[in-house]
């Protein structure tokens, strides 16, 4: 594992991680501001934080309530 960490050029991976992070933050902000969501808010917090990439997307597609 150590070797893997060293052999990776972080300049290449960093943007990828950044985008993932932005996605997570945007989803969380939207969730906090939302009055109501489909399903409980805490459930969505866990989904967004613990499921990589897919979590925020699931929230945006299914969690938001149309108003």
């Amino acid at each position: 594992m150590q070797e893997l960490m060293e052999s990776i050029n972080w300049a290449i991976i960093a943007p990828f991680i950044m985008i993932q992070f932005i996605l997570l933050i945007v989803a969380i902000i939207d969730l906090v501001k939302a009055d109501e969501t489909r399903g409980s808010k805490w459930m969505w917090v866990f989904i967004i934080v613990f499921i990589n990439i897919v979590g925020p997307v699931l929230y945006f597609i299914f969690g938001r309530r149309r108003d």
Partner: protein
Amino acid sequence: MTLFQKEMVENWRNKKWIWVPLVMIILAIMDPISNYYMPQIIEAVGGLPEGTVFELPDFAPAEVVMMSLAQFSTLGVLIIVLISMGTIAGERKSGISELILVKPVSYINYITAKWAALLILTLVSFFFGMLASWYYINILYGELSFENFLLIVLFYGLWLTFVVTLSIFYNAMIKTPGLVAFLTIFTIMVMRVITQVFHHLLNWSPNNLSNYIFEMLLTESIPSHLVGTASVTIMLSIILLIASIFIFKKKELAN
């Protein structure tokens, strides 16, 4: 036009303009990066007996482009379909569209505004995704010219245009968002099977677009059947759009 603006503002407010481009970028760069690091990943995960020599193919830039496009044609299309499934169907279900259509807004305006807003979101997201992929390909795999990149965006964008139009078509026809999504994906899958079965007859089927793009990258010239396929795709999209306006008009008047 005001409807179109309203639609764009709406897409901004519900953060689609933020998350859809980001997800498209992730989809596009996932495969180029993970394939580049595949030897290290296999080594780290281990499980191979000592001394195993693992020859991984060196990918040509054109092959990596195809990996990104493959992601777009599966997960990318799925996302497009999911974000578009409620755009008209959902509004009709909740009665918003009736409120809008009471005003002197023509049906043509309503449908085309929806269509254009969705199309621009999709194409811009795809453009950024492909741009990121192009950037990584140039760093990690070798040169891919900017003209080639633009041609890829242009021709594959036509396929995505077709997907968007198809989704709008079902939106105009059916009120249940889930069913709209299902039918759109089902239609695309059926088209793929038909194209494969009758491939010598359906040379210009829209499903062949990505194959021809690959051919274009390999031969460094635009094959004539790519142009043909592109025209067929544009024609089909226009027909679908007109058909959806007619169907929508009929349905709404019947109510």
